[in-house]
């Protein structure tokens, strides 16, 4: 069934988009990440202009995250206080990111920056995560992961210490705010929720219990993607509501299944799987950057399309 997307100005197969949304939604529910790091490249691949892919993706992530959070909320797996502190930094980062996106687009380097950020951040984070989770799996169940979290570093000497009872943490509020800020930047520039960065950052830097990480990161992502979607729609008119709704319908259904399966996975298993998926995307993009492109020339229309 072909359907015309009014903003992307493109005719697509509605079933294909529903399936894309469903598949990515499943992963999103499974790992507690938004799945934008998969969806944005896929949308660009099927011919959606990059600007529209990023803008629309932000909008659909809002819905997917709401649906994901509900499942975690019922299991009481959301630390609202920590989420709000992260959000304070996250909103600033998102606003700055939307501005940088427009700037890079005008300079003709947006594709390069998106690819490089993917390779750099996804590659590094996923490699570290894979290493750690494989190690945890090999060490076996006897190893209590909690004991490792409380080694003291300079991070614990930062000011504005705050108590987060739900996560049983007493840390500087600057830490979650900074993490939020950085991920907010990436939300706007890369069209991703930032979950793949948030999840490890919350586990390794903040030392949060793994069970709370997925729900809390999704909670924060609702708002950062919401801000990004709003700014992209107002500033660049790049949110295609038809595309967003199609992705959402597939995405929310997939996410519900993902969350159920995710509940059965052990923390390190889920992390290893996520790391593998992310690493695969990073490697693919790295290869694309290094291999000589088929056509050295590309064209850009002024609208960014």
């Amino acid at each position, binding site marked *: 069934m072909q359907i015309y997307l009014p*903003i992307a100005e493109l005719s697509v197969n509605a079933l294909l988009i529903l399936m894309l949304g469903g598949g990515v939604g499943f992963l999103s529910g499974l790992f507690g990440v938004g799945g934008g790091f998969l969806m944005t490249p896929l949308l660009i691949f099927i011919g959606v202009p990059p600007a529209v892919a990023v803008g629309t993706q932000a909008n659909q992530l809002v819905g997917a995250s709401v649906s994901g959070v509900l499942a975690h909320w019922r299991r009481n797996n959301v630390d609202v206080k920590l989420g709000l502190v992260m959000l304070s930094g996250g909103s600033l980062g998102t606003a700055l990111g939307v501005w940088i996106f427009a700037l890079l687009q005008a300079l*003709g380097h947006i594709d390069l920056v998106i690819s490089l950020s993917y390779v750099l951040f996804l590659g590094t984070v996923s490699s570290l995560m894979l290493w750690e989770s494989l190690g945890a799996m090999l060490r076996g169940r006897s190893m209590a992961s909690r004991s490792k979290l409380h080694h003291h570093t300079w991070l614990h000497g930062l000011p504005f210490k705050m108590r987060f009872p739900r996560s049983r943490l007493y840390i500087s509020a600057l830490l979650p705010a900074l993490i939020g800020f950085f991920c907010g930047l990436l939300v706007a520039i890369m069209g991703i929720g930032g979950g793949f960065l948030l999840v490890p950052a919350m586990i390794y830097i903040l030392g949060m219990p793994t069970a709370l990480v997925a729900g809390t990161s999704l909670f924060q992502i609702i708002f950062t993607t919401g801000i990004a*979607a*709003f700014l992209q729609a107002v500033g660049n008119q790049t949110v295609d509501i038809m595309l967003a709704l199609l992705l959402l319908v597939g995405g929310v259904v997939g996410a519900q299944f993902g969350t159920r399966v995710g509940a059965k996975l052990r923390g390190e298993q889920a992390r290893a799987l996520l790391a593998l998926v992310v690493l695969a995307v990073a490697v693919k993009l790295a290869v694309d950057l290094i291999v000589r*492109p088929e056509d*050295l*020339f590309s064209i*850009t229309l002024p609208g960014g399309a």
Partner: protein
Amino acid sequence: MMRARHLLALPAGLLAGFMLLLALRADAWGQSLVADLSSHLIAITTGFTGTDVVLFGAVDGEGDVAVVVQGPEGEVTVRHKDRVAGIWINTDEIAFARVPAFYTVSLSSPLDGVVPPAVLQRHEIGLDYIRLAPTKKTDDAEKLAEYRAALIRNKQRMGLYTTEPGEVSFLGQRLFRTRIYFPANVPTGTYTASVFLIRDGDVVSAQTTPLLVSKIGFSANVTEFAQRQSVFYAVLSIMLAVTAGWLAGIIFRKS
């Protein structure tokens, strides 16, 4: 696709009748060329998957016919990648002014060697002769040609420029017709269909007909809403997303 076929299945008799009328008119008014389109409006609706438009006409005698359809013009930047520190980066660019977003040419017979390049250039008949001027003057003719070729190549890949000239077929001596395909990603705007009658290596008669490509109905409303009331659109789209997510959560809780 169904719609496109339907349009083409337009009773052949009716079309022939039209063409006969045109032929008569051409004689009566002393015009050597008359042509028209089967439709002057391409409506992009929610189910749009591309469409065909038939151009038909009559000439008053021997000659070749060339049909050029051009889309709305705009600035296009062509960028060139080079390997820098192991990765491919855009290093150079040339912006071209007034580039047609869409371009097709159809011929009744090949014109190369028959018509002097200067004539083809003047009327922009054929991909080699489209007027593509850089926004900033450049003296490097070789570089300009390379970027120009790249622009055309990229447009062809998007299906917006013809790769091979289409065919203008003659029915008898005087009536001709050709079919122009507009793909699903055709840009909206005002197009022109120009018909040229060529005799002895020169254009002896020409006619230009406008053609409008426009979003109609739901997709037009969405676009207009997104552009005119972007704040409201932004809020509404986010609310839709939240509602959809919420609903899915509720539905799945009960099951």
